[in-house]
């Protein structure tokens, strides 16, 4: 709510100061702030409490392509996986070069980002192999309901291969 308040205040100030007519600008800013607040409150009541799994289920209902749904879930998972690595890398940078500033720091940060991107690419290859071993994306997500038969089928075929 605090964030919303400051965002709305910024919008009202900007429109008031930049509009040709101050009164018009203030009213426009106020109407934008009102619309923004209403949309935010609707989202806060109906969407945010549902979390990613709720949004995922809604996307299944809306027939959003499976590739996109998997991309969203994997990106979210990837954030939690890579977060620790990023934090560790940033702490090590601080310890190694505490007085580093400006462009030297920017350069070090981009190199850290680069190395984490390479690690992420390596990890993605391993994850992809693991997903394939579990029967591909059909067996990827347990909260998906509509293709359970495919999951069972692919599990059976994997069992046959393993025997």
């Amino acid at each position, binding site marked *: 709510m605090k964030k919303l308040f400051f965002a709305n205040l910024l919008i009202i100030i900007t429109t008031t100061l930049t509009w040709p007519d101050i009164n018009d600008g203030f009213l*426009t800013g106020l109407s934008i702030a009102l619309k923004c607040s209403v949309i935010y409150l609707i989202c806060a009541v109906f969407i945010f409490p549902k979390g990613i799994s709720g949004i995922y289920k809604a996307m299944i209902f809306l027939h959003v392509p499976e590739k996109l749904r998997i991309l969203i879930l994997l990106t979210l998972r990837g954030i939690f996986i890579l977060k620790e690595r990023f934090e560790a890398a940033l702490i090590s940078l601080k310890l190694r070069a505490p007085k580093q500033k400006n462009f030297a720091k*920017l*350069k070090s940060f981009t190199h850290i980002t680069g190395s984490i991107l390479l690690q992420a690419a390596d990890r993605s290859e391993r994850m992809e192999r693991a997903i394939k071993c579990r029967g591909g994306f059909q067996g990827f997500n347990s909260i998906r309901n509509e293709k359970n038969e495919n999951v069972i089928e692919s599990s059976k075929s994997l069992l046959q291969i393993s025997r």
Partner: protein
Amino acid sequence: MHISEGVLSTQILIAGWAGTCAGVALGLKKTKDYKIVRTALLSSAFFLASLVNIRIGPSSTHLSFIAPMGLILGWGAFPAIFVALLLQAVLFQFGGFIVLGANTLAMASPALFVYLIFGKIIRNSQKKFNVMIFSFIAGFLAVILAASIVGVFLGLTDKNFLTAIKLLFIAHVPLALVEGLATAFLISWLKKAAPEFLF
């Protein structure tokens, strides 16, 4: 760079969603199934990198990495940026759901533009200096283009936004310079460490 909810007109919101749907559909079609995991993890790495504040001079900034996303993910940058903005809206309440289409179009089109114009040139460049120069231009141009698209959206919504658009554009020039430098450092490092990594 995020446009707030309630600012844009309905027509622009619909146009934004139409453009985003087309871009995401094309991006998903061009991204092969086996590359989805790679796209997702790289997208999350960029997402995390863009959350870190870097102190430059008297102020601090967070990078958007629009150009590196385009240069590394290619067409996959469109769905990756869409997902990143969706997660930002859900997790941090940045931007919003209704304006997500316009925000995605404003940020993903420059990434795609940069990939189509500079991708091949950077991949084929052998000298480090050339890679750095082209990457810098790509990073700079991506931010300027994104700011311009936001400006166009605002201008088409209401002509009275003109002064605000000018302010927005001026505010983005130093950010574009920093982003250009970051892109130059990142791409030249990747070109040296893993040249096959660039799309």
